[in-house]
């Protein structure tokens, strides 16, 4: 199955980084202690958690859908990954430049770590997009 679509090892490496990041984000959100939310029960944190829930639902759907598209509908995989990369960049720009005065993440080390690693996710997704868009077409 892996030989059929002929992608570089760096692509699979980038994909595993992206998956690892998304799973760690899901884990961080799922295991957030109650007292963290109770201590920081501000409107900003509540609204941030609401937004994060919606985003993580989209992430979970993307995590499940992407392998299916990559292995079954390879022709459309490039559009899918470009859309996801655009979304990741949009969310990053939104958080740091647009919604910076409105949202606030709870104070937790794991949250800060996941937030600081977001550029790595974007870089790996960017590489995946480039490889799928600019890969030479096979003759068959």
């Amino acid at each position, binding site marked *: 199955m892996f030989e059929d679509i002929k992608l570089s090892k760096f692509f699979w490496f980038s994909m595993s980084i992206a998956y690892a990041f998304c799973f760690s984000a899901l884990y961080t959100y799922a295991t957030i202690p109650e007292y963290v939310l109770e201590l920081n029960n501000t409107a900003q944190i509540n*609204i941030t958690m609401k*937004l994060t829930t919606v985003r993580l639902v989209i992430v979970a759907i993307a995590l499940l859908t992407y392998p299916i598209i990559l292995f079954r509908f390879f022709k459309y995989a490039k*559009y899918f990954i470009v*859309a996801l990369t*655009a979304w990741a960049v*949009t969310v990053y*720009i939104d958080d740091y430049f647009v919604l910076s*005065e*409105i949202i606030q993440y709870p104070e937790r080390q794991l949250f800060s770590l996941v937030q600081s690693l977001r550029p790595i996710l974007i870089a790996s997704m960017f590489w995946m997009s480039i490889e799928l868009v600019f890969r030479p077409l096979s003759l068959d």
Partner: protein
Amino acid sequence: MKDKNTNDLEFRSILGDASDKNSNDKDYIVQSSTFRLIFSFINLYTLILIVLFFIVTGNLVEGVNNNFLESGFSYVLSARALLLLLLLISFNMSAYFNYGFKYVCLILLVYMINSAIDNAVLFSGFMHLTDRPYYSAFNVTRPLFIIALFWVFIIHRDKIQND
């Protein structure tokens, strides 16, 4: 006067050679009229939306809820309007040069869906339809715009189609 030495077969071959393959007129891609119509709609809609963003943030329209702009919403609208303007410029450039149009269209589509989700989640509590009727009209019709973008993405021709 017709040259009697030239028969119909020769005429056909001469005209055939001068048609598709060697014609410079066929080097560019002609998009369908539906594409051009939807493309114009997207441009018009986005430009009016950007103008409305600035009208709302400048508080130039009569509103019911005066607390509307005092919750960081003003800054969000300005930043969104600027990003949308940049994306619209990229959208038109990629259509003009016919390079990467589908990707720019996809990015614009994702951006619009994301901003719609953000608005729905963050500002649904105090952004009522009656606050800014003109602006609300555009928020309500946003799905139409998203459908238009998706349609343009599908019907765009990025290669010359041979007969």
